[in-house]
Every structure is written in structure tokens, then in C-alpha cells.
């Protein structure tokens, strides 16, 4: 199954915010995490993720800081802000409404 680019792009913000709500992370780890959570169905590209991270940072939903990782190399870690947590709640409600509607439609269609 191939998930469309549009759907991947639309779901990127709630996914990034929800993962960061569990703890700080960096770009490479975020991509691995999404791949693992989706069972390889969501294949994020770096060209998609980093602009999203930078846009969320500009919007004040996440914040970034350079830290030394376990390998001794510096990485840019992202963590969620209070505004980001509020946005996560809002995004969750919106996606649940979409999901609820789709399930009802398909449930009715399939009898």
C-alpha cells in the first residue's frame, strides 16, 4: 500500500508533535520512529521532515537545541512547547473527527 504524498504531508504535523510530546528527539530518530510505528507504511523523506520541523519551530510549537548525542556528535534536538501541546490536543480532536466519520461511512457501506 502506497500512502499519497498529500496524506503524508497532512499527517506530518500531528505525528511530529505527538512523538515529541513523549520526549525530545532529532530528525533521523523521528524518521526511524515513524517508520517503526507505521510498520514501514509511512516513508518520510528528509526533504519533507526538516522543512516541517523548521516551520513548527518558527510557529513556536517546538523548540530546538544543539546537544551532544551518545556517539559524541552534536545533534539538533527538538522538544515540544506548551503551545505545541495545545496544538497536539487540537490536532488529535480533528484527526479523530475525520477518522470517526470515515469509519462510520465505511461501516455503513459495508453493511
Amino acid at each position, binding site marked *: 500500500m502506497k500512502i499519497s504524498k498529500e496524506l503524508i504531508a497532512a499527517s506530518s504535523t500531528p505525528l511530529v508533535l505527538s512523538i515529541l510530546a513523549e520526549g525530545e528527539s*532529532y*530528525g*533521523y530518530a523521528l524518521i526511524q520512529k515513524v517508520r517503526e510505528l507505521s510498520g514501514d507504511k509511512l516513508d518520510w*523523506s*528528509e*526533504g*519533507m521532515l*526538516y*522543512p516541517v520541523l*523548521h516551520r513548527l519551530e518558527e510557529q513556536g510549537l517546538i523548540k530546538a537545541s544543539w546537544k551532544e548525542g551518545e*556517539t559524541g*556528535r*552534536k*545533534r*539538533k534536538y527538538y522538544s515540544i512547547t506548551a503551545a505545541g501541546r495545545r496544538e497536539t490536543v487540537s490536532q488529535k480532536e480533528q484527526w479523530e473527527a475525520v477518522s470517526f466519520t470515515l469509519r462510520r461511512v465505511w461501516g455503513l457501506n459495508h453493511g
Partner: protein
Amino acid sequence: MDEIRILENLWSDWRRNMLPAVGTRDRVLELESHVRDAMDHEMAAGMDELSAFKLCARNLGSPQEFAMQYPQPVSRANRIALWSVRAVWFLGFLVAAFYLAKVPRLSTFHVFFLMMGYWTILCSLPMGLWVWFAVRETDAGETTGQVFKKEMIRMFAVSTLTFTLGTWLGMVWSRENLGAYWQNDPKELVCAVITLVSGACLLLAWRRDPSPRRMASLALLAFGVAVWCYCLPLYWMVGNLDHSYGGDSRWYLAGALLVLTLILSGIALAGFLPRKTAFPLLAKDAPSN
């Protein structure tokens, strides 16, 4: 040793190419740390460092792909070009105002508006050429291209407005001074042709949202039509830049040329529409009988 130097050169080239695409050194460093993480993964699986770099840098994406995701700041050269044309454009308005105030023979509002219109179309030449030849392809779809595109739309709006006002006020002037609103003299026809072409360009820009390069082509077309109309029928054929109501063969020939110009401009502008809309009979799926 050679491999280390090759790798350093590759990293250096990669950073240099990535910087204008993502905008800041901080972002380049972040992407570099990403590539290094991915390289660690590949090298742990047995790949050598050089191959790992090539693979991971390629997987990351090209600078062009990143450039499409980030709004590109307008470069200094583009800003200077934009403001230079704006300054020259504004200067033309001052000259028109000077003529209105100080030169008795030209102190009518229709001359004032038409001068502003002609000057605006003249300014569209450097603007169009700059977008065609100096704005980079990656800029063309992004902020820089959009900035120039907005400026060209502004120019078409101003030229359409000033030519319309100039032509209508000229008709009033003609009625008061020459006894008729419209006499089909080449100068009147030139104004009508340029007003229509400028208006059509504005309409296309507004309704079809062309790319900055196509917009530049429209600007160059409008400039070409204005220069052609003014120089050939008015100056070379009729022999002066003033109104001419002679009714001789040159006068008729100039009129015919202007009408032909309008028709050819219409066909050229139709080329900016989708093929099916502009030339339905030439469309591939047109009915054959």
C-alpha cells in the same frame, strides 16, 4: 589518504550547494548530522565511508528539492534590480508630471496619463529581461519569482488604467478641440491597441496565474507591441508622432498595420491559454469530422 581528501571535498561541495537551498548554516549543520547518522548505520552494515556518504547524501535529497520547501530570500542582486526598475518607473511619472505642469503644448491630462502608460510599458522591458535571464530556475517558482511577478502584474494594472484613462480623456480632448470623439487616426489606434493588449495581459495574469517566466514573456510582448505600434505606423509611415488625419494611402496603411498588430497580438496572447481553450480545432482530441 586520497579517499579522505576526496571525502572532504565532497562534504565541502555538499555544504556549499545546500546552503543557498536551506538558507542558514544551522540547517546545513543539522542536515549534515542527519547524513552522518545515516552513514553510521550504513557503515555498521559494512559499507565504506565514501560509498556511505554518496548513498546517504543522495537519499537525503538534492538542494533543489530542499529549495522548493523553503521560501528563498530575495538576493541582493534581485533586490537592487527590482528597486532600480521601480526608481526609473517612478522617475518617469515625475517627468510626466513635469510636462503636465510646465510644457503648455503637453499640459493635458490625456498626455499625462498616456506618458505614464508608455513609461510603465517601457519599464516592463528590463523587468521581463531580468526575470528571463537573471532569476535562477529555482527562484522562478519561489519567492523571488513571485516578487517580480507581482511587480509585473502591478505594471500591467497601471498601464491598463493609465492607457484607458488617457484614451478616454484624449477622446474628450479631441471632441473639444477637433470636433469628434474618435477619428481613427493612427495615434488614436495605437492607444486603443496598446490599451487592449495591456488589458489582455492583465486579464491573463489575473485569471491564469502564469509562472514568473511566462509573466516575463507577457511583459516583453506588451513592450514589443508598444514599440512596434509607436515606431512603425506612427513615426516611419505617417512621419511624425502627432495626430494625423490625412486620409492618404500611408494613413490607411498605418491603420491596417495596427489592426493586423492587434490580431497577431491576440493570437500570441491566446498562446498563453491552454491549447484546448485557445485553439480548439488544433487540440489533439478535437473531433476530426
